[in-house]
Structures are given as C-alpha cells and as structure tokens.
C-alpha cells in the first residue's frame, strides 16, 4: 500500500488524466467486442491478439520509414480483410452454436495467432516512436505525452464514425436489424451471412486502429493480447450489450480505476485489480438479479 498519492495531490490529477486518456483507448477496443457480441453472440478471446496484430502492421510501417500515425488508416484497412477471412474460415461455423463453442474456437485462434506472430515477427518487445513530444501542465508537474492525447482523439473519431455509420448506412441498419432478430432480418431479405462477415471485419478493423495506437503509446509483444481481451470483456459486461455510450463511460472509468489501483496498490496489482472488479460486478449483478426474481414471484 502506497499512500504517496494522498500526500502529493497533484499526482491525483496526473492519474486521472492518464486514466481518462487510457480509458478512451480501452473503450475503442471494447466497441468492437460489444458490436460482434451483440450481433453475432460470440465472445472472441482472440480480440486482444487482433489488437496486437494491428500494432505490428504499424510497427512495420514505422520500420520502413513511414510515420506510425498513418498506421491508424492502413492497419484497419488490412485488418478488415483479416477479420472477414477469419470469419469465413472459422467463425461462420460457430456463429449459431452455443456460446461455449465460440469461446473454445476463438481461444484456439488466440493461441494460433500468438504463435504465428512470434514465429513471424520474433519474440522481442517492440514499439513505434511517434516523436510527438509532451504537453506539460501545472508548471511541469503534470505531463501528458502527446502520443496519448493523439490516441484518445483518434479513438473518439473512430467511435463517433462507427456510431454514425451504424445509424445512417444501409449495412449499418442491416447490422442493427440482425442484432435485434436475425431470423426476422433474414426473412425480410437481409443477407445475414454477409452482415456477420462485415461485422467481424469491422471489429477487426477497430482492433487494427487500437493496435496502432498501442504501438505508438506503449509497447507490443506477441503475447500481450490477453489483457486487452479481458479489459474489453469487463467494459462490455459493465456497460451491457448494445449500450455504446455506456461502453465509453465504463472504459474511462476502468482507465481511471486502473491508474489509481496502480498508485495505491502497486503496478503488480494493476491487472489483478481489474479481475477483482470484474468479480465484484458479476456478484453484484447476480445479487440484483436474484432480488428481481423474488419480486416477480
């Protein structure tokens, strides 16, 4: 337990700002998961690995001399096709099945992705330097790396773009219709197979954007995907399916929570505290549900 943050209050400002910027990125990653979960009823364990794959695309652009910020355009374009390909190969076979089957299948994909990335890109930890500089606040005592601000802005742009696209475009309406009732949508002429493929592709594209941002702000490594899957899962659970504003709020909340846990409990309990929160929320939900049932009785 470290109480330094209470003795030096400026650290709270730092932690909150870091947390919010981080949380916006988490929310973007969770958007993809919420979308495919809601539409296809699939929990994708390989979600985080798609993020890391997007990061590698940006890293290789950076290596070949292209500014990594352009990765947020290139990575989603490539990842969309990776997503569609993955859907056609594996996911279409599990989409109408039990949730457990999809978890198993995507768990397998996750392991495969990790090993393939390790094989192709090596086991080294890598990053893409953006050279964006730093913003300093409060006489230098709070520092915000511009790369984090950049990543938050890009995340917001993509999130808003997604919401507008879902509302206005034909495909977006088809996706929402399929999410509401796949059978009815099919009867009314929606090609649900195509909708599923596109949904998974969009999800992978969002992971691609997020991966680029992770490579620019943090580091990437073939085995780093799982924490991102868990965080997305957690955010979607808190917000509830189909609640996109809720995803944004719970994403930021989780970011701030993680930062404070890091300061107070120590960095080693950062991911642990996320798990703990997940358990607490699930127990609370269950408690609330059981109460409701009693009421109905």
């Amino acid at each position: 337990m470290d109480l330094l943050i209470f003795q030096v209050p400026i650290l709270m400002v730092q932690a909150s700002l870091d947390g919010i910027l981080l949380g916006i990125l988490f929310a973007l990653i969770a958007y993809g998961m919420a979308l495919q979960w809601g539409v296809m009823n699939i929990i994708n364990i390989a979600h985080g690995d798609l993020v890391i794959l997007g990061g590698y695309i940006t890293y290789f652009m950076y290596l070949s001399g292209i500014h990594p910020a352009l990765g947020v355009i290139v990575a989603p374009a490539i990842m969309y096709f990776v997503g569609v390909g993955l859907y056609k190969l594996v996911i279409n076979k599990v989409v109408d099945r039990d949730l457990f089957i999809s978890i198993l299948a995507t768990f397998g994909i996750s392991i495969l992705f990790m090993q393939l990335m390790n094989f192709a890109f090596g086991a080294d930890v890598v990053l893409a330097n953006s050279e964006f500089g730093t913003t300093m606040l409060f006489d230098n005592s709070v520092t915000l790396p511009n790369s984090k601000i950049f990543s938050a802005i890009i995340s917001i742009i993509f999130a808003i773009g997604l919401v507008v696209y879902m509302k206005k475009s034909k495909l977006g309406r088809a996706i929402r219709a399929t999410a509401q009732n796949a059978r009815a949508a099919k009867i009314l002429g929606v090609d649900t197979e195509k909708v599923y493929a596109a949904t998974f592709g969009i999800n992978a594209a969002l992971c691609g954007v997020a991966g680029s941002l992770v490579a620019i702000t943090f580091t990437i490594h073939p085995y780093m995907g799982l924490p991102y899957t868990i965080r997305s899962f957690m955010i979607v659970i808190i917000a509830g399916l189909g609640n996109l504003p809720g995803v944004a709020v719970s994403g930021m909340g989780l970011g701030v929570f993680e930062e404070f846990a890091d300061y107070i409990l120590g960095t080693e309990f950062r991911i642990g505290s996320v798990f703990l929160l997940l358990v607490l929320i699930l127990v609370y939900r269950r408690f609330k549900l059981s109460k409701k049932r009693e009421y109905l009785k």
Partner: protein
Amino acid sequence: MKLNKIILSFISALALLLSTSITSFAKVVGDKIILGSAISLTGKYSSNGVHTQNGYNMAVDRINSMGGVKVGGKTYKFEIIYYDDESNPKRAAQLAERLISQDGVEFMLGPYSSGLTKAIAPVTEKYGVPMVEANGASRSLFTKGYKYLFAVLAPANLYLDVAIDLAVEKNGGKPVTVAMAFEQDAFSQDVRLGVLEAIDRTGSKKVIDDKLPKELNDMAATLAKVKAVKPDVLVVSGHTKGALTAIRQIAEMKVDVPMLAMTHCDAAKLSKQHGKNSQYALCASQWHKTLTYKDDFFKDGMTYDADFKKLFDYAPPYQAAESSAALLVFKDAFERADSFDKVKVRDALAATNMQTFYGNIKFAEGGQNVDKPMVLFQVMCDGDNCENKVVAPTKWASAELIHPIPSWSKR
C-alpha cells in the same frame, strides 16, 4: 490401393524415425564429443535462445577448426545435439531427460534463462551429467548445492549493486535515496536483493519500491511518483520490456533523475529503438567488446565482435559471448581431466581457473563464476549516433561516467 499407399508411407515413416533413434549418439562417437542442449528456438525466449545457439555454434566451429580437443593423445571434435524447448520449463526438463537417457549424452550445455536452467538442473544432477551453462544467473541456482552445474556468468545479485556504490561515491561518500522498480520474476528479484544489500551497506534509503507485472507496458504511475519524490538513483529491471517502457516514458514524462540504472539494455537494443532518448542510461552487462580479456581462440572482445558480425550479420549481445565461453570451459576441462569419465570431467570443471575473451572463469562451491565482475556501460550519443561505453569498474572504463544526468530542459 489408396489405403495400401497410406499404410506403406506410414510404415516407412516409422522405419525412418526408428533408424534415426537407433543410431542414437553416445557421449563420444569416433572422434566426436557429443554435447546436448535444450534451447528456446520458438516461444517467448526465441530471440535470446537464438543468440545462445549462435554463440555455441561459433565456438564449436572455432575450436574444431583450431585443432579440436586433445584427450588421451587423440584429437576429438565437438558436436551439439539441440532440441527446441519452446521456452517452456516442463518441456526443457523432458528434453534434458531425453538427451541423457535416450540419446546417451553425458555432457550438457545450458538453455536460455534462469527459469529453464532451474528446470533442467535437477535432471542433470540426478544423472550426474556435468552441465556448463551461460544464461542462468539467478542466485537460487547456486544455493541448492548442485555439484554438476557450472555457470560462466556472474550471479544476478551482482548486476546493479555497483550502481549504488557509484552513486554514493559521486555523492561524496554520503548515502543516497533510491527508487526501485523490479519485475516479479526470479532474475529481477535477485537483482533487487543485490541492490537492497548495497543500500544497507551504504546506509542509503529506498524511497520507492515498485514491483512490475509480467504483462507490463505502462510505468506512468511509478515514474510520476519518481517525479514527486526526486530520488538520487532510479533502478529498473524488467527484461527488455522494462527497459524499453522505462526509457520511452521517462522521455515522454520528462522525468529528471541524476542516475538511471537498468538491465537488458543491449538485448532491448535501446540505443537503436530509442536513439537519443536512451542517452545517459547506465546498464549492467556481463560482457562488453572493449574489455581486454584474451584467449587463444577468439583473441579478444573486439575480434570476437567482428568475427561474430561476419558470421551472423549482427553485433553479438553478451548472451552470445558467454555461450561461446561455455565451450572454451568444456574444452579446457576435458583436456585437464584427460578422460571422458563424468566424475573426472566434473572435478576438472570445478578446478577451472582460466581466462577467456569473455572474462576470467573460476567457479565457487555453488557453481557460479566468482572471478568476473559485472561491468556498467552508459549510453553516450554523439549527434544521433549512440554507443555503449564502459564506465565502471574503473579498470575497464573506456569513458568517464556522466553524472548527474542533465535535466530534460537542458538537453
């Protein structure tokens, strides 16, 4: 018809498999001394595993081409059987078992990392097979009373304690305040113990003691605390990801600290990945090419560096150099034992007292090398061109330590 073909190919595959294992190697075949090693060619240690293998292979070729090993008036050549342990300790232990009981190997070379060496050591110990290892530095390897384990490298607790001594010296002999961030794995925690001992010895004070998680990619909280507390020394050890994350975020958050000491700088290719941002970082290393140790096979560090580059197209990290040194130790021990008896070779290994291009080698009771100090180098940049220069111990220093690190506003 089709079925017949399948059966036929199955049988022939089986026959092929059997024929390779029937000709299984014994310890010494003809004029060859067979060594065995489980090594991480895939999985999370694969890059360092390959450095290790390259180091071994280069030394084998060099020793063989320069006359081989002379035992009992006859000349022998080295050969190594490798298996891929997939960076998995359980697999490594299985493979060691297989090397010894199926392939008949009687002399082993170590794997990469402390964790895997820990998994293999009980097996080699059980069969009384001497193992010279070059990549397991955790102190716990040397306190178990192993008789057949020999490590050419200095144990992990000696990695960064020198940095604290150096900071105290620069502070006019007065105690300093130390902020620490260490990963929670066997190696980093041993490094931490060494630093703690140095803090006690010098009467210094630890002001931050953070533990980093395995999946670390954000140290902003630790660094914000460092900014608030303003310690004299910041010590970070968390393998390559720790080194990379620390340098990136120290630069981004403009953290000013008079001394920054780390491990794994050259494995992280700090100066390449971060350029000028890594300037002034102080790094612990088992070996550096500018050290002036000598031997007959590789001459000295500079020659080793050049030869290695010619062969593998990259500069040798210390993981490769220490692996090459392991072969030199084996050769020396075989010739002194003048026998292939495992116990005699083991006793000869225990009595090793030699110099290699990598450093002096002399084993303590526990098997660790006690005759080779760690070196500290500092990343120094001239324009955009950054280089690692040895600054401590003074005997080997090729440059003067820059202390305190200039603040970010003045860079």
